[in-house]
């Protein structure tokens, strides 16, 4: 039992940090431009596939640098040639643009790399067990993932809170015109922020690709959870996104690991009752419920606290 708790906690924190890496980019872009980037998970997927392809050509370490740069460049192009032109039609049009983009990216990826998972392996340098807990080997690669996520998180906080660049970014967030009058190119600031956000997603893709499955529906599987994270945490709140990422990461990992059901806790129902919703609910295991747990959390938070954990306003 203790083993399960330790391993699940580690995995949960890992998944949570990965979620945060993605939702931080999404949150910064959202609070900056008011655009909810539907294609964010698609950039994550692009990162994974670029990472896979570049690893094949040049090895993992160059890929770790190049793939996020590529994804960032794509992100900047999307902002410059897509979102900026759509801005005049309002936020819904921008949201729809990224929605169409997410759809198109998924199709392009499955067109080029196929629909089945690609063989994206952990680099040999990190392919060893880091330590052994209760006879289970914990892979070094996961520690590496965790380290990268923590480093990015700290770096992001420092850049945003402690540097001049962060100052300008935060000011452009609330007072774009004032920042413009001070001589900063607000359009370029937006473009760079969008690019950095996309690059973060790409980085998450490169490092998560070998550990999770790299295939063309990974964006569609993760995208909705990202939105749950940022609604749960409170829209536009970076600390909120952090807490929500960890909560959802942990809850989901524990749910997957647990195999209990109401039937195993209280005994099976009378067999004569026949199949019904009740028997379904009674017999379903916690592991089976795991995929819907984030959405249940979403519904609960909306009823209890509509602005999210750390959110400040209703809409």
């Amino acid at each position, binding site marked *: 039992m203790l083993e399960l708790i330790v391993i699940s906690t580690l995995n949960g924190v890992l998944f949570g940090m990965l979620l945060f890496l993605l939702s931080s980019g999404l949150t910064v872009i959202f609070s900056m431009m*008011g655009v*909810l980037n539907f294609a964010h998970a698609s950039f994550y997927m692009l990162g994974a596939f670029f990472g896979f392809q570049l690893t094949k050509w040049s090895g993992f370490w160059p890929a770790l640098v190049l793939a996020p740069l590529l994804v960032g460049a794509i992100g900047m192009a999307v902002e410059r040639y*897509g979102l900026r*032109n*759509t801005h005049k*039609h*309002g*936020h*819904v*049009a921008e*949201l*729809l*643009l990224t*929605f*169409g*983009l997410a*759809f*198109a990216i998924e*199709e*392009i990826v499955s*067109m*080029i790399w196929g629909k089945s998972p690609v063989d994206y392996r952990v680099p040999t340098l990190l392919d060893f067990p880091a330590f052994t807990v209760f006879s289970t080997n914990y892979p070094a690669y996961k520690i590496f993932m965790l380290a990268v996520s923590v480093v990015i998180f700290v770096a992001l906080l420092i850049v945003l809170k402690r540097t001049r660049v962060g100052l300008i970014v935060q000011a452009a967030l609330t007072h774009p015109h004032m920042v413009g009058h001070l001589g900063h190119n607000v359009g370029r600031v937006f473009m760079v922020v969008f690019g950095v956000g996309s690059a973060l997603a790409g980085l998450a893709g490169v490092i998560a690709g070998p550990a999770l499955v790299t295939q063309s529906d990974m964006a*569609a599987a993760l995208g*909705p959870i990202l*939105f*749950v994270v*940022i*609604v749960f945490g409170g*829209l536009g709140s970076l600390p909120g996104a952090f807490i929500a990422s960890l909560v959802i990461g942990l809850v989901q990992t524990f749910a997957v690991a647990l195999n209990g059901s109401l039937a195993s806790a209280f005994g099976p129902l009378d067999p004569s009752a026949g*199949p*019904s*919703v009740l*028997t*379904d*609910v009674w017999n*379903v295991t916690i592991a*089976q*419920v795991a*995929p*819907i747990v*984030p*959405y*249940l959390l*979403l*519904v609960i938070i*909306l*009823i209890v606290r*509509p602005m999210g954990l750390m959110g400040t306003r*209703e*809409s």
Partner: protein
Amino acid sequence: MTTTNTSTSKIADKPAGDGMRFYGVWLIGIAALIVLPMVFSSGGSLTSFSLIGIAIVFALSYNILLGQTGLLSFGHAVHYGLGGFAACHMMNAVVSHGWPIPLPFIPLFGGLGGLVFAIIIGWVMTKRAGTVFAMISLGIGELVASSSLILRSVFGGESGITTDRTALPKMFGWSFGPQLQVYYLIAFWLVLSAIAMYALTRTPLGRISNAVRDNPERVQFIGYDPHVVRYLAFCFAGFFAGVAGGLAAINFEIANSAYLGAIQSGLVLFSTFIGGTAYFFGPILGAILVTYLQLGLTSVTSVWQLYFGIIFIGIVMFSPGGIAGLVMMHRPLVRAGTLWTVIPSYLVAVVPTVALACGVILTIETIARYSGGDVINLFGIGFRPTSPVTWVAAAVLVIGGAFVARLTWRRIADAWDRAATVARDRGYLA
């Protein structure tokens, strides 16, 4: 989102001639629905018409949210799917209990299925509009779609729930076995729902929904609660989506978890938006186009969804009013008699634009078939995906086409401005 008035907003205070024209359009539509299967009587076209009819009801119901109330939902298929399941369960119950309910009433129960879910979940969902609503609808959609695989007794797991439409009591001696009879059933419900949904836009609720879309704060000042208005609109949309789902259940005699999923929600969003949300007939156009493309393209290319994505992105970027918006843009020019000044520039632009489109298609197909090696057949010319000639042709078409097309589009814009200025002078354009 453009916040144009609905096309019909002036009809109420127009003289009788316009009223005649208004009813004329509806009567022509109904007549076309009756005559269509007589002209195109093959099994394939009947199936297509049935699917298009279902898609139209679904898209119109979606537009109650998106176009009327300004709520962008990514989970509208939930109501559609639940309506489908409700209809299937009802049909099975009618058969097993021997209730005297004939098939034509079943879509009503589908509608109730969609409505009940909207009533339960809508109050929480419609608390907030805009982006937040969009995300929440996505989350709820995923929630229901994933739960449907867990609650096997209700949703039948992966295989879904089957039913037999012919086992229900007959009506007018129709067994609804042949597709033709199902087509007429769908057409009947299409007309009924379309009239009901159109009527809804004319009610005070429909009008206040438009106000909520445009300026919720002001609506609050005049004493209405935008939350309640959004909730009511959400319930109506849920009901009609359920009707569409019920029709689909009757048509396919099955309901499964694919009805509820994100793909179905995405399709209805595509249909509605591509058609145009600002006019009542927009979603109808969109549903016809998207369903037709879907049916037509699947047999031609393996990546038809990519073409959807590209068309959708193009519409969002260049014509947020959709196809209906593009068409209605020309109305003042037609009235002012200046349309003929624009047409030559259109004709000039057609050639490079088509070349550009061909280049994009060729590029996509080349990449898609690179490993397979099928020959791409474009206007009777065969291109081999592995030969460099194909790549050069694709590159020339895309780059050259884009370059020339941009010039011609600029000419269209100039000609358009001139024509619009004249139309404005003559008082046909605000």
